[in-house]
């Protein structure tokens, strides 16, 4: 086959990256194309750089587990609240039946819903960490995602941990109707309780974050970071365009534009996210739970009840 055809055939395929854990997402190709600069990249090279294009800095989508692994201290993550599954409460069958969407999402991701949460440390700071996986029905928030997020905040409050959320989402999950909408209030209420308990919450918004998830727990963090190039908003760009009946300005709803409008604190490249989050936790964690300033790179000994 001519080499061009071979490349064309390869281009159409989507590869997910795994940085070690699990076999469910083994890459099925050695080459991938950067959607930004269109260069063909060697898969191994991409993986080594946390799935960031070495040429143009494009941040590839990551699965939830890999996002968490890229942020927390190696080996410190322990999943919590596993085993929650949607019961398809509305028996939603308009369009594609929800039950079959759920089944397929479970099969392709190996997850039981879009949110993965657990305890971990970040440079020694005890946290509850969560990540949403966009492959699972657009990381939309239904009852299970809302429950996991709320429990994550509650556990952090009980165990005196900080919270770090890595958020990507299409918004509330319409297939669960009002039960989904109410998860916005539920997660916001849980985040508010953590805040009133004097514990810090840092969110990392990644591409794309929209709708009811943006308008609830995602932006209630004490410090909000975003990945370069991430699209973030409430209404999707097409709806906004239809509303104003003219084309959108360049850079609309990008992380950089949100920073200049005062909506987020900093655009943080993936490679720096762990150290930036750790630095913030160092400032905001209660004194008896914080790692002292100036401690070296090796995680300091934790106070009682910390991670082993």
């Amino acid at each position, binding site marked *: 086959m001519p080499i061009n055809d071979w490349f064309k055939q390869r281009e159409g395929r989507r590869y997910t990256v795994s940085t070690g854990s699990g076999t469910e997402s083994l890459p099925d190709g050695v080459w991938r194309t950067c959607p930004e600069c269109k260069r063909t990249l060697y898969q191994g090279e991409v993986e080594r750089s946390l799935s960031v294009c070495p040429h143009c800095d494009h941040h590839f989508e990551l699965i939830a587990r890999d996002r968490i692994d890229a942020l927390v201290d190696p080996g410190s993550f322990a999943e919590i609240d596993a085993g929650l599954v949607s019961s398809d409460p509305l028996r939603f069958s308009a369009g594609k039946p929800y039950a079959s969407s759920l089944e397929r999402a479970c099969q392709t991701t190996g997850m039981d819903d879009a949110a993965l949460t657990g305890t971990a440390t970040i440079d020694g700071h005890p946290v509850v960490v969560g990540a949403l996986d966009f492959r699972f029905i657009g990381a939309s928030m239904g009852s299970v995602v809302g429950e996991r997020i709320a429990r994550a905040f509650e556990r952090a409050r009980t165990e005196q941990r900080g919270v770090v959320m890595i958020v990507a989402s299409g918004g509330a999950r319409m297939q669960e109707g009002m039960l989904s909408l109410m998860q916005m209030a539920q997660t916001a209420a849980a985040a508010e309780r953590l805040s009133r308990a004097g514990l810090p919450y840092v969110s990392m918004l990644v591409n794309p974050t929209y709708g009811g998830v943006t308008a609830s727990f995602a932006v209630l963090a004490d410090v909000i970071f975003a990945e370069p190039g991430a699209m973030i908003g409430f209404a999707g760009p097409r709806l*906004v365009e239809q509303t104003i009946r003219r084309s959108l300005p360049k850079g609309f709803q990008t992380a950089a534009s949100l920073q200049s409008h005062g909506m987020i604190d900093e655009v943080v490249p993936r490679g720096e996210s762990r150290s930036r989050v750790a630095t913030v936790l160092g400032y905001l964690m209660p004194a008896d739970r914080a790692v002292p300033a100036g401690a070296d790179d090796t995680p300091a000994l934790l106070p009682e009840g910390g991670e082993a």
Partner: protein
Amino acid sequence: MARFVMEFERPLADLEEKLAALANLDIASTPQLAAEIAELEREVERLRATLYSTLSPWEKVQVSRHPDRPKTVDYVAYLFDDVVELRGDRRFADDQAMYTALATLGGRRVVVIGHNKGHTTKENVARNFGSPHPEGFRKAERAMRLADRFGLPIVTFLDTAGASPGLEDEERGQAWAIADCLATLSAVRVPVVVVGIGEGGSGGALAIGFGDRLIMLEHAYYSVISPEMCALILHKDAARAPESAAALALTAEDLLRMGIADEVVPEPLGGAHREPETVAGEVGVRIATALDALSEEDSDGLLERRYERLRAIGEYNETD
């Protein structure tokens, strides 16, 4: 001016027109006409009863959007005294799509917060059809904080198609403004009574749309997404909204069944706009009853129960 007629009301409206025309004739000179009119009246009555007692979810959505339906300011006018409107968010502007006020309901001093739809096109243009900008939500949050500081219960009226989805709304942080309302409303140490009077569109409704009681009018709806948008996503065809409306479980009855709403206020045949004063009176009684019951709880208990109430919403299976 001709009455606004919803699509499904057309057969009824035609009959009503005929009846009105007959009533203008000289009945005394033609006795058989009187009988005919009486017959027609009975038929109109029968049709109205059938039509409105079996409204589909999509038809309810249409009733909830009826321009003559009583709006937030109508309920305020009917039910509240000594009204001091609170204007502006103290940051940017006074969003006419959100109404906030100090007001008194039968001797109970409260803070009223409501989406502010108008009846006429002119009113609606000024109020962005009841779809708040970020400053509208910030104005609402200002009212919530005021209520919290001075121990005034909060009464909210839901009537919006949703938050405004414009360019500047995004740039001024629509999502941030809504999220702040959610966080603040979850933590105010005063009773919060929510009344769904018309449209309950998505996050823009939720921002002032949960608390210690949710009272829904019979034909009001509350939904995660508008039926049209849902149909557009599922079928790429907004005309299939009737199907989506049914699938989304958005009626007052659905909400009651799911444990999200606490009570449903029945509406007169034809909808609340047929007898607005009667409906407002009943709504007033329900609000007063809820406020009186809630005022007996101390604020810690109130907060705890509100949180538990929210946490109980959601359905899933726990394996393991």
